[in-house]
């Protein structure tokens, strides 16, 4: 199953990546490519909307960790919005549920960023 990605800039310095589908070894490079160009100076935040992601494996997690490290480098915040229970479960198994900034909705995730 494919991964569909939409990239928007809803506010100045804020990028919203909406993912839909499955993130695995096959599709995680697409997610990486969608996020990478926006990790740069003068950006404030990256929001990844996971509400439509039905599956994520360790390569997806690794991609998000990479993005988090990139955000740190440029002083940006990374926020994940509305992961499904299946994806939340994987974050929990990886003990990363506390490390990522996870918000209940994309509106929540975008607050105070712009």
């Amino acid at each position, binding site marked *: *199953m*494919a991964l569909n990605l939409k990239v928007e800039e809803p506010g100045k310095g804020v990028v919203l990546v909406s993912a839909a589908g*499955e993130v*695995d*070894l*096959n599709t995680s490079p697409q997610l990486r490519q969608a996020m990478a160009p926006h990790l740069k100076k003068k950006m404030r935040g990256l929001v990844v909307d996971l509400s439509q992601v039905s*599956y994520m*494996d*360790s*390569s997806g*997690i*690794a991609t998000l*960790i*990479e993005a988090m490290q990139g955000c740190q480098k440029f002083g940006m915040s990374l926020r994940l919005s509305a992961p499904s229970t*299946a994806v939340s*479960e*994987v974050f929990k*198994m*990886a*003990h*990363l549920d506390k*490390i990522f900034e996870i918000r209940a909705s994309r509106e929540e995730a975008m607050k105070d960023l712009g």
Partner: protein
Amino acid sequence: MPTAATDKKVKQFEALLKIGQRLSSEMQLDRLLEMILDETTHVMEADRSSLFLVDREKKELWSKIAQGTTEIRLPIGKGISGAVAKTGEIINIPDAYADRRFNPETDKRTGYHTQTILCVPMKNPEGSIIGVIQVLNKKRGVFDPSDEEVLLALAGQAAVAVENARYHSAALAQERMKKDLEFARTIQEGFLPQALPAVSGWEFAAQYKAALDVGGDFYDFIPLSEGQMGVLIGDVSGKGVSAALFMARLMSDFRFYATSLSSPGEVVGRMNQILVERSRRGMFVTLCYLLIDLSEGKITVVNAGHLAPLVRQTSGGVVPLEGAANTPLGILAQQTFAEHHYHLQPGEIITLMTDGILESMNKKGTLFGPKRINRILADAARGAEQTGKSIFQAVNRFAQGTPQHDDLTLICLRRKQATKAPKARASKSQGKEEKVSLHVKSDPRYLALVRRNLEFMLAQDEILDQDIQRIVLAVDEAAANVIRYAYQGDPCQNMDFTFSITPDWLTIEIRDYGAKPDLEKIKPRALEEIRPGGLGTRFMKEVMDQVNYDISPPKGTLLTMKKRRSASGGGK
């Protein structure tokens, strides 16, 4: 009293009338042109004549025969004949070498000496210029206005005759082609199945549209013994009658071998042998043959250079069944044809097609292409018939009436959803084993396919059902590790999966044939460590009760993961 001048004129027009009659009875263009030149030279009392026809597409004048010379092509607008063809005005040159419009190149080459030239347009009755006639070197004196008038009249006659002949030969060729195509179409349609198979639990649909020039598409549903069905689709290279005859023999041979040999790979191999012997002029065949076990949905695919069948999963995913890429039939002798296996789940649809669909073209020359197919398939869950119709309608809308030069063929088959999921427990409580085997290439694209198969199997089991997501994750991680580490990302290697459920255990085996792991290094990462990598292995150990790497095979590794199947929650 007629003067000498008027007498001459009368004679010329009598000649013209005669020519007109003769010309209109000659329908062969080459002979007609020759005749026009002979008569022109004679009537005009000239030394030689030439005739050029307009090639509108290339914006050129061409002449197959110019008396005394060979075929010539000239750009319209250039030179004397070119200028006449462009403007439609007569050019009359009394002294060639004193006129700047004359180019002495041809004289130099041929040794001819041009003195006088008269060149007029050939206009058809609608007034458009279809060519020019040029006469050289009047026997006595120079070409005068009455010569111009006569040659113009002659050119008009010739124009009508040329158009008639052209129309006639085009009409003849068209008539012959139409007869051929009707014959080809009769053959082709006579051999394609007249009805769709009716099998409970399955839906079959086929759509077929012959191209204008009848390609060599074919398909067949072959009922076999013991609840099996053969489904065949293919394309003979070439078009018209010869391709249709080739296809007809192929289909009857295929039916014979499909019913007498049990392995689909063998059937296709035997057909290849026959076609290599029979094939002439480089004709070859691509085909895809599916052997379907109707009771369980197990499908054996043999693909000989054809488009990969597409599986539309119930989740909306579209996965190509890309097994071993075999060569087309009829090219190389002694080929073996590898089989590929897929377990079609209830609700899933397989779509088979010929490249006429993908290569359907719209007015702008854009191809329909695989993405549009995938979108239609993914878009909505449909029955087999509706899926086929949707794709055909989309192709028609896309082509907007642009004539297609290849046949369009599409087959859809769907395993119907069971009205009630079978009770897996009943069989397991009798100590039976449920087993699914899956062979895929080490391409990350197939990970989704592996997950779907496993998900389906686990969903049938009321105990493992609750742990589907975690188990699927563990298996996916193990497979991803094989791709990344054992095969270093090479997508063309083999991975074999076996999932089995017994009353006590779920056992998952993953066999690879790549680099063996360093067992010391396969350790789950410490919890505090959040760097990427190693996470997958931790997931595997966390979900499963046993994870064991057997590196004893001469090549590769057998990974066995076990999870206890106990309703009391004794497992993890």
